[in-house]
């Protein structure tokens, strides 16, 4: 396999993986309105737990980490997802109960810095600044995959997982639960006045989204075999935010488009730019700047994203539910509403 194909499948992997990550952040931010600036810390925890439970006992490996149970794929991935959800519960009880959106965002960003410091400095946990490495690639020995054939194989596995997770997420967002999330997003006071337990709703959304973060993170460490703290500096969270803002907040299909534009094209294809002599790290910074500029252009010209959230129409609802609506006298009702009388009311 040529280097180009090798690279193409790497891009495909990240396309699907960031689609999963974007779905997780989207249910928290896009659907429920929780500005989770700690999102990539959740991704990292998912990755570390997935890696640490699948690695063998740490004695004699030259690394230090907890777990080390040799758990095979995909069970290690599930454990990563569940561990991340548990972290979400803890953080939600600390932060969501008391804090309003803006303060919540600040506390979450500091929480992610604290998690970062812990992982970076407390070696016995996930090997400190060196991070985990030599995480066994799933199925590689069973299927006798070489380093080259593993990459397209795992990109395909990730695609299948992304498809399943997209199906599950669509079910959630289209359900009454998803509607309650959006009510909380639009106005939590109104949601509460309508009998919705706002904290429970936000908690559910945090748990679901964090599970997606954990799975997406687990897939990253399975794909690359390693992860160290520099890979999840808080700035990474903004790449996922960029994916959902570009794709269209609140729309699951749009997130795939966002992932393609931001993660695949902007973040990874810029690696093809020729290195600038004398400035080895410059491309990375250009990356960040490009994302920033792209985001500003999008917010200016198409703030709703490439593929925005589309509301469910009543006709679709009635059709899917398998019943015709009540016999409302439409003609009369429409006359009522277009009544000029209605339209000179104040805009509350």
């Amino acid at each position, binding site marked *: 396999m040529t280097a180009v194909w090798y690279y193409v499948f790497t891009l495909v992997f990240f396309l699907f993986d960031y689609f999963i990550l974007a779905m997780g952040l989207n249910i928290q931010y896009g659907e429920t309105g929780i500005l989770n600036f700690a999102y990539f810390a959740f991704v990292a925890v998912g990755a570390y737990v997935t890696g640490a439970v699948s690695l063998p006992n740490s004695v004699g490996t030259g690394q230090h980490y907890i777990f080390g149970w040799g758990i095979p794929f995909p069970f290690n991935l599930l454990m990563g997802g569940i561990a991340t959800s548990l972290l979400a519960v803890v953080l939600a009880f600390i932060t969501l109960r008391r804090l309003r959106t803006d303060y919540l965002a600040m506390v979450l960003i500091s929480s992610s810095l604290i998690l970062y410091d812990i992982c970076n400095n407390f070696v016995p946990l996930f090997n400190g600044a060196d991070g985990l490495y030599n995480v066994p690639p799933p199925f590689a020995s069973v299927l006798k995959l070489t380093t080259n054939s593993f990459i397209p194989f795992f990109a395909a596995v990730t695609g299948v997982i992304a498809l399943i997770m997209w199906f599950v997420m669509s*079910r959630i967002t289209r359900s*009454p*639960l998803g*509607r309650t999330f959006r009510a909380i997003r639009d106005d939590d006071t*109104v949601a509460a*006045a309508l009998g919705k*337990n706002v904290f429970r709703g936000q908690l559910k959304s945090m748990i679901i989204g964090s599970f997606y973060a954990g799975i997406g993170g687990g897939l990253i460490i399975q794909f690359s075999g390693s992860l160290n703290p520099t890979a999840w500096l808080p700035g990474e969270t903004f790449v996922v935010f960029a994916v959902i803002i570009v794709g269209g907040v609140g729309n699951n299909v749009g997130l795939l488009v966002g992932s393609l534009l931001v993660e695949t094209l902007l973040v990874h294809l810029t690696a093809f730019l020729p290195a600038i002599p004398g400035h080895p790290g410059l491309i990375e910074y250009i990356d960040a700047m490009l994302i920033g500029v792209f985001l500003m252009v999008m917010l200016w010209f198409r703030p709703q994203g490439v593929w925005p959230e589309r509301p469910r129409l*009543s006709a679709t609802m009635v059709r899917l539910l398998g019943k015709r609506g009540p016999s409302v006298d439409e003609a009369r*009702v429409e006359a009522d509403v277009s009544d000029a009388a209605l339209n000179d009311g*104040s805009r509350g």
Partner: protein
Amino acid sequence: MSDVTPTDPTSEPTIATTSTTTSALRCEGLTKAFQGVHAVNGATFDVPQGQITALIGPNGAGKTTVVNILSGSMKCDSGTEYLGEDEVTNMESFEIARLGLMRTFQLSRELGGLTVLENLLVAPKLQPGESLFNVFFRPGTVRRAEQVNVERALEILGTYGLYAVRDDRARELSGGQKKLLEIARAVMASPRILLLDEPMAGVNPALIERIGGYILALKAQGVTVLMVEHNLNVVEKICDHVIVLAEGRTLATGRLSELRANKEVVRAYLGEVIDARPPS
């Protein structure tokens, strides 16, 4: 406008109410201060079961704050609130809502990103489809509940003249339509008690008439209504009972005709209104 000398709450000039019905909602000595501003300062009143009660008073009298406290949107500093027999003081907003008390907002607060229909569909309490387990493992139950809710919501939208805009995003409605949506959404939750904060503010006379009709229809269905209202013609027409609030305390309660005879009430609030617009 109100130069009433602050009176001891116990010595309020309360006019005996003619109604002997039980109260659906009752509050005693509610207080609430915002950085030293005593917005509510001992409000005490009963809202009789199955009737329409008006809450009137000058701007800044604390009417909205009282509604916020009663509905749990705000916590009071002291005082007690009873829903029927049960004390609900400072309970969470969603708990009070689940007990059957719904409120609307003086400045319409629509769920802007949702369609008009979805705004209503949010309202029914404890829907099976709000549980993750049910969504995946009891799709039939979720679907049947949804069927019932969609039908009922479309019916209510028909009644309130919002059927044609059912698929529009709520933020795109006109001011008058938003006022209607506020009420329709609360009605969708099948309330026992409805607190309406100026449901007719800023709408034209034709719509005022219609909203008045809706409120009377709700009363006929057995809903207890407490409405904040400045328009005394409306109060005269549809309200059975009036509570006058001034400077955060209950100044008087009774029928509007009785209150017109009350010097203190007239001085605090009714005076110029009556002079300007004699009752029809």
